[in-house]
């Protein structure tokens, strides 16, 4: 359950507030603040609630109009999770988000009618420090298939199992199958070859090499499809992914002139861009979970940025 005033929303002005009124309507414990002129003065109104505030939501207009807002917010409420909300036609470039270490971006798609449930659900997840679960965006009763990898040789069989679960005719279904196969490929490669690290952070395995999982290694691939939404998740027990590094990868690959063949994190960038929403949960040294979902009839422009949630939990996660 939410506590009182656990979430603050900062709007740029009254028009901005009207723009987001409905999308945030279902969030309990909400403190609405409209920044009128002075940012420091507006942020001071948060100080009495610093003990309970867990999440600060910044509208894209607030963020672009006040470049120091993230830094100032953290001065008042250290450890607060910052969620940037944007319309799909005005989503911000990632470089400033990387610089400000803003790890949560929610893009409200007007083409999809704007999801009224999306923000309350995601804010609840952040307030309660809950990880994203593969079944959370699927219809109730949808089967979630999970496979624990023993060898890299199983990769193609797992991709075939995913494709087999996406039965159906038509261009949209064919596109979903191809996207699903690529996402599974990237998730599995990432877990098998990028996650395993030595004591000095060095990669233990070369991309594409045949390998068996180590005795204590646990890589689990899960997916579910409810006829409209495909959700995928890959969990490894290395916990070697650095959330700040993920943001850097996404920002670097987003640059239009990025044609370097050795750009790091291209796989994560592809995963982000092919999913409708992208989730990463890291417990350093213990576990990394990467996944998200995509719609069969997604009207999102493949070229436009997607929402992401990159969380780091020092202790074991709730679920």
């Amino acid at each position, binding site marked *: 359950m939410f506590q009182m005033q656990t979430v603050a929303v900062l709007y740029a002005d009254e028009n901005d507030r009207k723009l987001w009124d409905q999308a945030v309507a279902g969030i309990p414990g909400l403190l609405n603040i409209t920044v009128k002129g002075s940012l420091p003065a507006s942020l001071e109104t948060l100080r009495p609630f610093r003990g309970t505030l867990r999440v600060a939501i910044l509208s894209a207009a607030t963020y672009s109009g006040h470049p120091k807002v993230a830094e100032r917010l953290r001065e008042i409420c250290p450890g607060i999770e910052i969620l940037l909300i944007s319309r799909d036609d005005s989503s911000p470039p990632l470089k400033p988000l990387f610089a400000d270490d803003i790890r949560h971006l929610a893009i409200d798609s007007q083409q999809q009618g704007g999801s009224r449930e999306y923000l309350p659900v995601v804010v609840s997840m952040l307030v309660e420090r809950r990880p994203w679960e593969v079944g959370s965006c699927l219809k109730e009763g949808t089967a979630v298939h999970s496979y624990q990898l023993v060898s890299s040789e199983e990769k193609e069989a797992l991709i075939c199992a995913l494709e087999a679960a996406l039965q159906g005719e038509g261009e949209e279904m064919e596109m979903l199958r*191809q996207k699903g196969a690529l996402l599974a490929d990237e998730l599995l490669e990432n877990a098998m070859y990028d996650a395993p690290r030595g004591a000095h952070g060095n990669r233990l395995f070369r991309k*594409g090499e045949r390998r068996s999982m180590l005795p204590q290694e646990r890589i689990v691939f899960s997916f579910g499809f409810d006829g409209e939404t495909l959700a995928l998740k890959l969990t490894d027990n290395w916990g070697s992914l650095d959330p700040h590094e993920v943001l850097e990868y996404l920002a670097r690959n987003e640059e239009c002139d990025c044609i370097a063949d*050795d750009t790091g994190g291209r796989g994560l960038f592809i995963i982000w*861009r092919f999913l409708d929403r992208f989730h990463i949960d890291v417990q350093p040294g213990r576990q990394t979970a990467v996944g998200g979902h995509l719609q069969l009839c997604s009207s999102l422009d493949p070229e436009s940025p997607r929402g992401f949630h990159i969380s780091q939990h020092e202790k074991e996660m709730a679920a």
Partner: protein
Amino acid sequence: MSKTSDAPKEMNQFQHDYFVLLGTIDAHSESFLKGLPAQVRHPLVTFDFSKAGRINSMGIALLLRCFKDIRAKAEIRLEGLSPMHSTLFKMTGVFLLASPAKDGKEVSA
């Protein structure tokens, strides 16, 4: 797996190299793609992707490396791209090195 095929006869008159890529393009395509630039003899190179399947991030890295080497001596055209290939190439900068051809006529123009 990837491999080349002989250029279709009608295209040889336009003095270009023609490569057909087959199957999945990933880390296992490295030696094949590394060897392609050395095979280029003409100022125009066409890559046919109509028989190519999934291309992952490692495959993209290898294609970018291959295309960069070829670009030093020839123009690159891409044929037979699926919507998935096009989306992927657009978002990863492949089209900055190689242009998509709508059909064979554009390649030979």
